[in-house]
């Protein structure tokens, strides 16, 4: 755990999950969400500082959901790893799926870690505390 809060880009489409995660990080105070984008396209626009995100602040870590509209997590991950500027940003796959395929694919694609979304808030808090 570092002293400065990690700056995290949250890529998530579920509104409830976004609220809960923000609350959890607020509780844990270990990291702060620098931005929240709701789908993969937005994520790439942000990371590419395109459009409205022309002066976006680069995150220190990307918290990436898998099942999203327009562009899903795997595609974002692949594009990030293909882009020299974005390669080095660690990506944590944060998904409701506990399927072995998703896990394996995530690691294969270069995710730093795979975390299944906890089913209760306490679990979220514990997760947030690990940063």
């Amino acid at each position: 755990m570092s002293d400065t809060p990690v700056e995290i880009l949250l890529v998530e489409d579920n509104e409830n999950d976004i609220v809960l995660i923000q609350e959890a990080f607020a509780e844990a105070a270990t990291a702060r969400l620098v931005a929240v984008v709701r789908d993969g396209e937005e994520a790439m626009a942000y990371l590419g500082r395109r459009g409205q995100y022309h002066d976006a602040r680069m995150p220190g870590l990307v918290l990436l959901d898998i099942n999203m509209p327009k562009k899903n997590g795997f595609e974002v991950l692949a594009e990030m790893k293909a882009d020299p500027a974005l390669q080095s940003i660690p990506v944590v796959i944060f998904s409701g799926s506990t399927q072995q395929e998703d896990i394996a694919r995530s690691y294969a694609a270069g995710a730093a870690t795979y975390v299944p979304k906890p089913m209760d808030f306490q679990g979220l808090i514990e997760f947030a505390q690990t940063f």
Partner: protein
Amino acid sequence: MTSRSSPSSARQLARVLGMAVVYYVAGRLALLLAIPPGYATAVWPAAGLALAGVLLLGNGVWPGVVLGSLLVNFWTSFDATTPAAMLNSVLLPTAIATGAAAQALVGARLIRRFVGHPNALTRERDIFLFLGLGGPVSCLTSATIGVTSLLAAGVIEWSRCPFSWWTWWVGDTIGTVLFAPLVLVWTAKPQAVWHRRPLSVTVPIGLTFALTVVLFVRASAWEQQRIEHEFERRTLNLGQALRKNFDGCLEVLHSIESFVASTPEVNRESFRIFVERSFRRHPGLDVVSWNPVVTEARRARYEAAARAAVPNDSLYGFEIREWDADGRLVRAARRAQYVPIQFMEPLAGNESVLGFDVASDPVRSQTLKRARKIGKPTGTGRIVLSEETRQPYGLVVFLPVYAHGQPRATAAEESEHLLGYAGGAIRIGDMMEAALGGAEGKDIAVRFYDDSAPAEERLLYADRGRSSEPESLRVAGDQESHSALHSETRFEMAGRQWTLEFSATPEYLTVLPWQAWGVLAFGLVFTGLLGALLLVVTGRTVEIGELVASRTAELERANENLISQIAERQQIEAALIESRDVTEASRRDLETLLHVISHDLKEPLRGIAGFSEMVRIHYADRLDPSGRDFLARINGEALRMRRLLDDVLTLARARREELATAEVEGMKIVESAIERLVSTIQKTGATVWVAEDLPRLQVEPTWAVQAVFNLLSNALKFTRGERPPEVDVIGYQPRAGEPRAAGLVVKDRGPGVAPEHEERIFQLFQRGVGREVEGTGAGLAIVKAVAERHGGRAWVRSREGGGTEFVITFEKAA
């Protein structure tokens, strides 16, 4: 005897006529093979055809056999010379025809009885019985009837009966043995099976038969040649014997000539002694005489001297005599010369002839002149020598005798020195019989001709020999060829030309030509045996063929059956596979559905659980107890729902996932499961005892652990009363009747499972206990799914002393 079926009378008539025609044709052809002189045929195919006809067409064709036989025999032996002969020549063929028909009927009956008809003649027993009964046995009939009829009709003698019967029986037997099976083989049904057999049997038999016939013809020809040579030889010998004898008689004259020439005075006594022995050695010699030439001048002195020479002259009163017109002996008239018989031996009975002037008889006088002319013994023509009627003829031979050492160059000298004539009378009959021998000559007819005589006086001797007409009515068409044995010899003797004629009597040719007959009989017997052999061999072939055909048909049927069964099976298999695929597909779909649903359901659940928790964290103090209670319930239900979804997901995965199994110690599995329950065990104060000899298991470790975890978790929930849970884990030992497998048994001391729930509890969400017991109701379903995915089973059984035993088995470790 009635025929089995009753065809229309027109058809029956056609059959009868057909039988008659066949019999007739076969009979005529067979007669070409008749062997002389008995006219017996060594093969009588008509008998075989008759038998086959009766077998094939029924007993009712017997009139056809009678008719055919009548036609064959009648034609060739019809004799209309006398009414008796005519009757005979009608009755006799009728009797023989009856015998032939009876034979066919007897044979058919025997065959029907012991062999069966129709019969394929494929088995050895059938073939040999057929040949035996149809051949030797039934052919006794016609031979016996026929020979008896011949005997009764007086056509043959007793002595010839055995041979006739023998040849008749052999001929019929061979004809039957050869031809009856051939006919049946050609007309047998079904032709499909038989089609090669007739040819295979007929061709070799036909060839052998033809060969036999050819050999027989050669042998016959050879035999015939032999007979002819024999005949020639014999007649040659006979001729030579005759000439020798004849010559011998003439030699006697020569010896008399020498005797007279050398003896100054010949008297009766010395003459007699001289010629006495000659008669024994020359049987044909009747008398010999000395006939001196006496001139008229010397007559009186000659007669006186002759009378004086005979002591007892009272009987003779020798004088020169001649025959008068009435044939009596009277004193000879006066002429220049006389040639009286001075001596004659043997004298007895010939006394009256002494003194007879042989020159007075014109025939003898002629002969004397000729004899003088040629200087050799010269004979007269035919002369009746005696009163016998049988062989009355003879001839007289004269030989001129001249004085020894005197010249005869001129006629005058010759006449002057002629002393007289030696004379001899020869009985042709005796000479012939002596020359021709006794019994040996009886089978050859002899005729002896004097060619130098006028036509009506030429036959000197004839002997027909003993001849009897041997008979079988199977008479060959051409009689002359067989009695044509004939030979003629011509020679000159005693100044005349003679012809000696021999012809063979039928007796001569009765000497049975054993060689030819033997060849034919042997050849035909061989052919018959060959036929039997061919029938047996082809019969076997036919049977084997039929067997092969029927087995092949069976095999084909079985094959077709198999093919259709296979097709059925394949169809069933395809249907099964299809349904299995469908089931699998739908199962997969279901499980995918389950998975997707439970996954998607988790999302809102997260929201519910998370926000209700948020409310509790931030706003619990603003709620009254009731409010806090409601919140707690919301949280609780969310949590429960999460667990349900997790279990369902697990179950779906358990059923769906491929298992990568490994060999793992059972102990390890159990330990892993217990690790996850440590807190629960501590909390409940439970005792878990694990046996040390847990088996090795071929399992996918994660799932095995999950299953055991579920079982242990259940066991820890169930206890009796307030006692802490007691859980035992041992290795699975099958009881009698249980399947053998590797597995574990988890035992608890809980309340037990009611028997009616033993199956239910393994179903998803079917619980055997109430809600007071924690659990989703999916645990055992997962256990069962894991077991079945491993090829094992999961079940429950009650425990002695209370409680439950849960058994989970996996496929046995190798």
